[in-house]
């Protein structure tokens, strides 16, 4: 479960969002500049809200009234960025293992294999990020986030930097992830078609305000 009720002033732009989502995939939908990325960064702890609370999986990670702000690295989230952000000095195997090492988790060969198979990245393990295609990089970034065993997976336009055919290459993996990985996700996109395929709940944003919240059908009613 994810509960968000925050306000944040970013220069001229003010963000105010309040919603509670039980869905497996919460889609944050809106045009560019609507505050989607600021909102997901606030959930990640990279942006600190001026006022309000955020509760992830029963844990209050932000509560300005109580002075609570759990730093990003202690939130046990996974974050897949639009630009994969793989570590260039590590090979793919080490990239995938990074979150496990940082969280001091025991090695879990079964889960490693499951994620590698799910994303079809077994052939890439010994390569360097510099040698991968955009789609491959994004799959590795997904695997890296999943293997840190997050309570919540945040995805900020993970297909945004890919061309149409690459998008179609990745989408099935995301659907499998939703159905098999068992980690709730927040999925940011400006593409209604993408969200229709993936999301179970939609938070619609316009100029920093939530304008609609509900099932995928809110995508068809205007926007």
């Amino acid at each position: 479960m994810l509960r968000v009720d925050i306000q944040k002033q970013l220069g001229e732009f003010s963000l105010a969002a309040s919603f509670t989502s039980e869905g497996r995939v919460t889609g944050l939908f809106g045009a560019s500049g609507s505050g989607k990325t600021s909102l997901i960064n606030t959930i990640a702890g990279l942006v600190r809200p001026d006022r309000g609370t955020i509760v992830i999986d029963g844990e209050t990670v932000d509560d300005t009234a109580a002075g609570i702000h759990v730093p990003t690295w202690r939130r046990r989230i996974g974050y897949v960025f639009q630009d994969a952000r793989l570590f260039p000095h590590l090979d793919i195997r080490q990239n995938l293992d990074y979150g496990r090492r940082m969280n001091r988790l025991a090695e879990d060969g079964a889960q490693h294999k499951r994620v590698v198979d799910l994303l079809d990245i077994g052939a890439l393990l010994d390569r360097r990020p510099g040698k991968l295609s955009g789609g491959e990089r994004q799959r590795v970034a997904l695997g890296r986030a999943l293997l840190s065993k997050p309570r919540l997976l945040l995805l900020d336009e993970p297909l945004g930097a890919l061309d149409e055919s690459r998008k179609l290459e990745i989408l099935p993996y995301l659907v499998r992830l939703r159905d098999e990985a068992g980690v709730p996700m927040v999925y940011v996109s400006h593409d209604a078609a993408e969200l229709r395929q993936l999301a179970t709940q939609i938070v619609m944003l316009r100029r920093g305000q939530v304008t609609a919240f509900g099932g995928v059908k809110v995508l068809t009613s205007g926007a």
Partner: protein
Amino acid sequence: MFEISPTEWTAILLSLRVAVIATLVATPFGIALAWLLARRDFWGKSLLDAAVHLPLVLPPVVTGYLLLLTFGKRGLVGGWLADHLGIVFAFRWTGAALACGVMSFPLLVRPIRLSIEAVDRRLEQAAETLGAAPWRVFATVTLPLALPGVLAGMVLGFAKAIGEFGATITFVSNIPGETQTISSAIYSLIQTPDGDSAAARLVIISVVLAVGALIAAEVFARRATARLHGQ
């Protein structure tokens, strides 16, 4: 002509020892300071930045004199260190290392700072989302990615330290076997009537060391850069 005398050997080995120790001791401080200047905003930052560069713009003799006033036996810090920890800098090779460390510090810090600034902060953010505490982000992402700059800074600092003259001779004088480095040995030799050929030998050696250091810096930087770009 290339018979190196025992006194010359002593000066060469002392120079190497002084420069190696100065570089190794200064590097952790240099990395910490470079990180502060590259990644943090705080009150007095430009003042600190200026202070780091001071040895570069002050006459070396002034730096040496200030070191003497501070770290000499009757100096504020030097007196305390001698009384409480038994560490003496004045007229010792340790003082030469201190002088070289201070003089080479700006050259050490600058490349490290630039390379830390060049590290993509989005990668540091990604590390944080994967559960890395700030110091582990530094140790596993920032520092490895800044490695070419760290190596370049160390080599530059070393080259500067091995050639340092003005601050060293002012602070710890020119005592053969204790504080007489290659530079101060050359200085002494060219003032004695038949020291020319010995001076020439040491000049050649210092040129070789300096050029060698620059080539090493270049090689290190290229290798590290290639590795970091995922090749």
